[in-house]
């Protein structure tokens, strides 16, 4: 029941929100809806009644598809991320002006519903439905409220992901015909009888779809442009939550379905991701635009998670589970600061910024904390995850791990460089009259900073939450 509510509340709230004309009431309404979703998600995590977490009803008996939703460890942690990030984002942009605000926030909620659906569905066709439906609001939000080149860039993003998901659809139908009971249920998909050659094909069809979403090198070219052009409130959703859909797909569907194919191809994929990490980090150093820098740094981080998954080491996988949450939190924090700077000063370029710490000390402190978390300094939340992932990757291949560690050093370099150029040094013309961030932004950032520090010191609750699922996952794939 909770699983169903998690999807229904944002759907209904979003649809109602589409028709609210008044800007402030649209904002308030969407904030309330997102808070309700958060409460329901928390309820799902702390409830002791197992039957509340499960929802199952017949849907298309002709096809063997059912509406099956379930909250297990993996979906708990990702729906928590989705549920936490939405109110934080809404609070952070609460004072910004959006034309047609009702539609904007309504589409945000619909997108949230789509993502929650992806995380909760235990039926392949339902998963595909939500996978696509999450994309439609994203397409409209980015194309209507985005930057100058929004239409072409968003269309590129849409076509990229659409091609991928259609290939995945072919794989889903193919596997469906080879399931023992002709059903789309997750369990039947795990037990599908495929020959080795078929497994290879299906693995790649699935992987391309997920790789485009994550994105993994060489499928990443849509990502920096889209992050740059989409409205920052939505960039937070895209990079914080939506890219996790790709990782989620690998964990829930790809690896348990085709463990052999994953093993035989893991060297290719890990190499690709490590190349991608290095490539993205090197490009990030040369960036002059805050948004693009963070976009490339995100490619590097997600690449590491992907590599750790395909390395198939227990420590690495534990790390991925918690890092999915932490990466979301950290990157949303960074975007919030970028958004504040862009809205206030009208530029995101380092060359036009400087000395902001003198004018906006609170913002500077909060930003520095988020940045340190982004480079995974010990005692921040990301440290635990990255440490575990690196130890997993090291067991798999020391060479790969060594190469990937270079990226960490590069990450420290470009992140600290960004702090230095934007917040320290002397003030320049554009930052002369800057003022500190407003209360709502500070509140949103403080929430994130608290999460960063709490989970940095005490990651145990998260490890507990996912332990069971991780164990199940590891037995499935080995």
């Amino acid at each position, binding site marked *: 029941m909770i699983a169903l509510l998690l999807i229904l509340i944002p759907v209904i709230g979003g649809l109602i929100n589409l028709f609210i004309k008044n800007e402030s009431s649209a904002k308030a309404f969407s904030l309330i809806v997102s808070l309700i979703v958060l409460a329901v998600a928390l309820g799902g995590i702390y409830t002791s009644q197992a039957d509340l977490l499960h929802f199952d009803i017949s*849907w*298309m*008996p*002709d*096809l063997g598809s059912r509406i099956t939703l379930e909250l297990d460890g993996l979906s708990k942690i990702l729906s928590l991320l989705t549920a936490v990030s939405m109110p934080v984002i809404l609070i952070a942009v609460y004072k910004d002006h959006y034309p047609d605000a009702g539609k904007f926030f309504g589409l945000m909620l619909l997108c949230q519903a789509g993502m929650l659906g992806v995380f909760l569905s235990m039926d392949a066709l339902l998963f*595909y*439905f939500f996978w*696509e*439906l999450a994309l*439609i609001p994203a397409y*409209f939000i980015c*194309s*209507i409220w985005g930057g100058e080149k*929004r*239409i072409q860039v968003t*269309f590129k993003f*849409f*076509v990229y992901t*659409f*091609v991928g998901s*259609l*290939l995945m*659809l*072919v794989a889903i*139908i*193919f596997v*469906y*015909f080879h399931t023992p009971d002709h059903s789309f249920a997750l369990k039947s998909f795990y037990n599908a009888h495929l020959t080795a050659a078929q497994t290879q094909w299906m693995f790649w069809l699935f992987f391309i779809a997920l790789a485009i979403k994550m994105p993994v090198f060489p499928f990443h070219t849509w990502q920096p442009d889209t992050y740059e052009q989409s409205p920052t409130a939505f960039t937070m959703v895209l990079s914080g939550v939506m890219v996790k859909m790709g990782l989620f797909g690998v964990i829930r569907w790809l690896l348990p379905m085709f463990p052999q194919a994953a093993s035989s191809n893991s060297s290719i994929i890990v190499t690709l991701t490590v190349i991608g990490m290095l490539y993205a980090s090197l490009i990030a150093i040369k960036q002059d635009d805050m948004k693009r820098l963070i976009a490339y740094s995100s490619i590097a981080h997600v690449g590491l998670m992907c590599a750790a998954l395909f390395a198939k080491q227990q420590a690495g996988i534990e790390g991925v589970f918690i890092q999915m949450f932490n990466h979301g939190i950290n990157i949303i924090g960074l975007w919030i600061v970028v958004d504040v700077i862009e809205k206030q000063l009208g530029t995101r370029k380092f060359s036009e910024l400087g000395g902001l710490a003198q004018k906006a000390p609170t913002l500077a402190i909060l930003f520095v904390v988020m940045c340190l978390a982004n480079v995974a300094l010990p005692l921040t939340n990301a440290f635990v995850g990255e440490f575990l992932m690196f130890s997993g990757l090291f067991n798999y291949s020391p060479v790969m791990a060594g190469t990937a560690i270079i990226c960490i050093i590069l990450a420290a370099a470009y992140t600290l460089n960004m702090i230095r150029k934007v917040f320290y040094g002397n003030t320049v013309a554009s930052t002369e009259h800057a003022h500190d961030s407003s209360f709502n932004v500070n509140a949103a950032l403080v929430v994130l900073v608290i999460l960063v520090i709490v989970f940095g010191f005490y990651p145990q609750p998260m490890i507990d939450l996912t332990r069971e699922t991780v164990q199940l996952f590891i037995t499935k794939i080995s």
Partner: protein
Amino acid sequence: MNAIIFSAGWGIIMMFCSFLVKNQSSYRHIAAVGLLVLLAANIFDTYGVDFFHIDSGKMLAYTRFGFVFNSIAIASTLIYVLLTGRDIERLGRYTAEFFTLVFFVLCGVCLLSAYNNLLMLFLGIEILTIPLYILTGSDKRNLKSNEAALKYFLMGSFSTGLMLMGIALMYGGTGTFLLESSRLQSNLYHGISFLEIVGLLFLLASMCFKVSAAPFHFWTPDVYDGAPSVVTSFMATIVKVAGFIAFLKLCTVRMSVTSTAIDWKLIFSIIIILTLLFGNITAIFQQSVKRMLAYSSISQAGFMLFALFSMNEYASKGLLMYSVAYCLATIGLFAVLVKMKDVTFEGYNGLAKTQPVLAATNAIFLFSLAGIPLTAGFLAKYYMLASIIKTGTYTWVVVAGVLFAAISVYYYFRVIQAMYFKNGEPQMESFGRSFKLGLVVLAAIIIIVGAFPQALFNWLYF
């Protein structure tokens, strides 16, 4: 039998209305009533109430599938008449005759869904296409309309000739016009006649022409573009899908029997790829939405050909789903298109600002054509892909088809981009509140069928 007789009868009634009823605007109401009667008669027939017991001597074979398809065709026509009735009136003085011809076309559709004899196939195709030649040229003063009608007539009669040749050869090869007969069963043991294969190839070519499959599609863009938009709407949807239903029967009965002698799957896979290629690639370069829809109808035909390729139960169900999804979405798009003064992509700029309801419903129709989940179009494409995957061979056709589906997103979404993301003042003809309501209902049907396909398929069984 009900539907065949009622459609012909009401056609004659409409014909007489043209001089008995003086009021122009009442024609479409009479037509709508006629379609309702037709629909009711067909539904009675579906559940075994046949008003006319006429022995057709195995020439017609009624199936539940055929009845359900008839209902879909009639209901789509009803929606078409209700949505675009006013625009049909603007076409000229012969409104009643227009509806007469529509009823005759429906008579052909009902024959095609039930034929069991090659002569009936021929008769159905002729009854279907001859009114269309006239409808295509119904904008008498427009040179393009005249050109389209003449082109269509010449090419169409040529392909009909091919079909007749094919039927004659098949008769020579098997000694019967019947699709299913005991004589044909025994043929299985005596080998397959060479003449029958040649005949089937002729039939294949002419049916490909009727459903505008490559390489017999060249008439389609010119005719669809030249014909008045209201006619194109009818021609590109109900008529085309009826052609597919007839084609499917031919395939499942005759081609599957002769598949040991000739590799139909290979032929169809080539036709599918060619159709998808031509339809999609040329659609990209169009500047007019009407012409884009003409090419898109070719590419959608490519997807419907999947059913003919695989000939299993997924194929027949999928074709039903496709006819619903494709007909309704295209009728909706054309209903808005005929209201537009400028039918280029630029003409749609800013529609979402001035007419949010039209833009939103249009977007849903386009989603359905592109195959986005939660619309009927997705399930239609799903069934088509699944039907080929189920055969276990030629999976590369599916992958190619999927890539073409992704290309099709490009031109469908150009309309969405124009409506939602660009600014402009679209010029439109006037329309009433009921028009908007009709569009909303249409969009709702598409979404309901897309989310709960059981609503449609239950009809096949109960």
